[in-house]
């Protein structure tokens, strides 16, 4: 057999893994790899303008398509620039493989030029990681990396490849299987336990399905919908779970938790049976944990045993793949008698809907509702930045399908939305991809405008421009006596810093500014009509707040409802 270089082995391995797109940025320690990618027609490489952008783009690609996202960076600063992106993917269990160049093997540990111990740095923020010390293990390591990234509870895997390993030569033989004695995820749930869930459902009076991102990751939406319809059990979703169940279904309670709907939180607090599927009882969901769902028997279906009883004591755990477990549950389950429960929920829904002030002022909730209305007939994917923009999007956009809502949940990474939208657009060229952004967050990866323009990725950016780091300002308003310490981005006057319209134009994208409520619809229509990236700068009511809100550390029964 002929020998090829390590760099070529990496590329051939990527092709074996069916990787069609990779995002990255070159540098000294990946020149051989970049050269090999350059020669490979089947692999489309997207040059971003920052390694963080590459990592989030790979992540967005993975979230939108369900496939493993791939990003590539050089050693040292290139690798460390990936860190936020890797940590973001790790917190949200997103399958990703990051390949980094490393200094020559003999120089490792010598504080060589552009050396960083990226394996050490990323150990706690990856599902697993590798330093490839010898070309003979390169292909098998990549095989393992993809396997680990996409199976079980997915997550990012980093493979660090010294430049001499990229240059060394070996035969290419891609292993067919992996055999890792320490890694064997459990997919099939315990039937006895699943039967017990069916029993618990049948006996329940006030059941709630509490759905997390795991349902989307395992592709369990259909089974979930069947279960909900068969049993008539209301469904609430975490922020990561949005889209797992249609938001406009009569059984949907919307999102729960800190900025969840009042009716979802009340339903949780009064439930007698809480069925958590692919959710992890995050503190933003549970609030004060010892007051969470006090009367509920807790069922937890999850693929990760370490998620069970981590924060909340679980009465009935089932370890397994959400889709397979729900599928089996469907064979046992019977409809409980919960008419009274539905009456109560209906009352909450009527009395405590999501609401905002309907006046002439340009408010963000109205923008999102309008955006939703105008894109309903399209295949739309929404990404978000972090802050109020993210919460208003979660509350007021209606998600009907999985993988149409891409947002940084666990880490809450400002700067995620735009590069993630780029990745999503690469993976889903037929979709209308929109990043709903804050004026603060968008500046954290604005440089990717060049990536969008040059790669003809017609991503739309909707900036909810309040001139503040709004979410932090909201906390300051409510809990720090309105002392807006370092959260003011602009004075609210007519001079903009930056002027997002001009900024977009300087990249060769379109920019639109909207200041009035009656311009919203036409601006959105215009943006959709433009075949290229567009940035709409909505100058919104500056001190609008996100309500309901559960103050940090309090019971989710104690919601602030604001003035509206």
């Amino acid at each position: 057999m002929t020998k090829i270089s390590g760099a070529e082995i990496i590329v051939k391995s990527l092709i074996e893994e069916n990787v069609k797109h990779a995002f990255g940025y070159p540098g000294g320690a990946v020149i051989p790899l970049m050269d090999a990618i350059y020669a490979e027609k089947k692999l489309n490489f997207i040059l971003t303008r920052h390694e963080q952008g590459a990592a989030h783009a790979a992540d967005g690609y993975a979230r939108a398509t369900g496939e493993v996202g791939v990003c590539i960076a050089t050693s040292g600063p290139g690798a460390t620039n990936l860190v936020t992106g890797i940590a973001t993917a790790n917190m949200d269990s997103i399958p990703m493989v990051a390949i980094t160049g490393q200094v020559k093997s003999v120089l490792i540990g010598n504080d060589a030029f552009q050396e960083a111990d990226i394996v050490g740095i990323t150990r706690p923020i990856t599902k697993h990681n590798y330093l490839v010390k010898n070309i003979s293990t390169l292909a098998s390591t990549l095989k393992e990396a993809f396997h680990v990234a996409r199976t079980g509870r997915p997550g990012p895997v980093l493979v660090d490849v010294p430049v001499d390993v990229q240059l060394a030569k070996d035969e290419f033989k891609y292993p067919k299987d992996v055999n890792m004695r320490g890694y064997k995820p459990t997919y099939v749930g315990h039937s006895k336990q699943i039967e017990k869930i069916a029993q618990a459902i049948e006996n329940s009076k006030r059941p709630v399905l509490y759905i997390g991102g795991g349902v989307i990751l395992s592709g369990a939406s259909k089974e979930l919908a069947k279960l909900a319809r068969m049993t008539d059990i209301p469904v609430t979703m975490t922020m990561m779970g949005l889209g797992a169940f249609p938001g406009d279904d009569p059984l949907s309670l919307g999102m729960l938790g800190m900025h969840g709907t009042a009716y979802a939180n009340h339903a949780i607090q009064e439930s007698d049976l809480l069925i958590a599927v692919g959710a992890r009882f995050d503190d933003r969901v549970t609030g004060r944990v010892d007051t969470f769902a006090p009367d509920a028997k807790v069922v937890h279906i999850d693929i990760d045993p370490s998620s069970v009883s981590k924060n909340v004591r679980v009465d009935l755990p089932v370890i397994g793949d959400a889709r397979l477990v729900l599928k089996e549950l469907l064979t046992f389950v019977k409809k409980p008698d919960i008419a009274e429960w539905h009456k109560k929920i209906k009352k909450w829904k009527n009395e405590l809907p999501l609401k905002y002030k309907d006046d002439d002022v340009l408010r963000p909730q109205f923008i999102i509702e309008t955006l939703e209305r105008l894109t309903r007939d399209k295949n739309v994917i929404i990404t978000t930045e972090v802050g109020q923009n993210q919460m208003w999007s979660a509350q007021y956009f209606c998600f009907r399908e999985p993988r149409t809502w891409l947002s940084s949940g666990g880490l809450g990474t400002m700067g995620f939305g735009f590069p993630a939208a780029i990745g999503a657009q690469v993976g889903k060229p037929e979709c209308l991809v929109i990043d709903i952004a804050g004026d603060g967050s968008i500046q954290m990866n604005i440089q990717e405008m060049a990536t969008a323009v040059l790669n003809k990725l017609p991503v739309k950016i909707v900036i909810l421009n309040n001139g503040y780091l709004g979410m932090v300002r909201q906390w300051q308003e409510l809990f720090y006596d309105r002392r807006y310490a370092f959260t003011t981005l602009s004075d609210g006057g007519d001079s903009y810093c930056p002027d997002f319209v001009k900024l977009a134009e300087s990249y060769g994208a379109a920019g639109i500014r909207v200041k009035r409520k009656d311009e919203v619809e036409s601006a959105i229509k215009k943006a959709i009509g433009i075949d290229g990236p567009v940035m709409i700068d909505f100058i919104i009511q500056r001190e609008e707040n996100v309500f309901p809100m559960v103050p940090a550390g309090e019971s989710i029964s104690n919601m602030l409802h604001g003035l509206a």
Partner: protein
Amino acid sequence: MANFILSVLVENKFGVLARVSGLFSARGFNITSLAVGETEDPEISRMTIVVDADERILEQVKKQLHKLIDTIKVLDLTGKETVERELLLVKVNADKTSVREKIIKVADTTGAKIVDIGKKTITIEEAGDEHRIKALIELLKPYGIIEMARTGKVALSSDK
């Protein structure tokens, strides 16, 4: 809080110790002692970890250890029939002849081994379970312990 003994079989690979110790520090778990060494299979290492935890934390420790890709098996030896040993080296002050004789006597009666005799010190080795090690330390304390090294516990389940 109490001490629990975990015996963890891991891949004998570069970085495994860092993964395990990193896990404990990142999640705020307390290690009382940790001993690592090769097993009968050179590709597998055994880590004997004594954890200071309550039942709930212990459960998380076991699950998190298991979650590491390089972990092959997590055995909880707490409350099981086990053989446990720890090695102690202790250097005691012995500058007077009268003291020397007393220390040698302590070693003789406890069955500990004298492994080094210096002009002013005596170093004693003891291998045994926790009880034995502690007892010897207590007996030697009055003479003045100058230095001490403990390996941490290693353990295997007993087949009695």
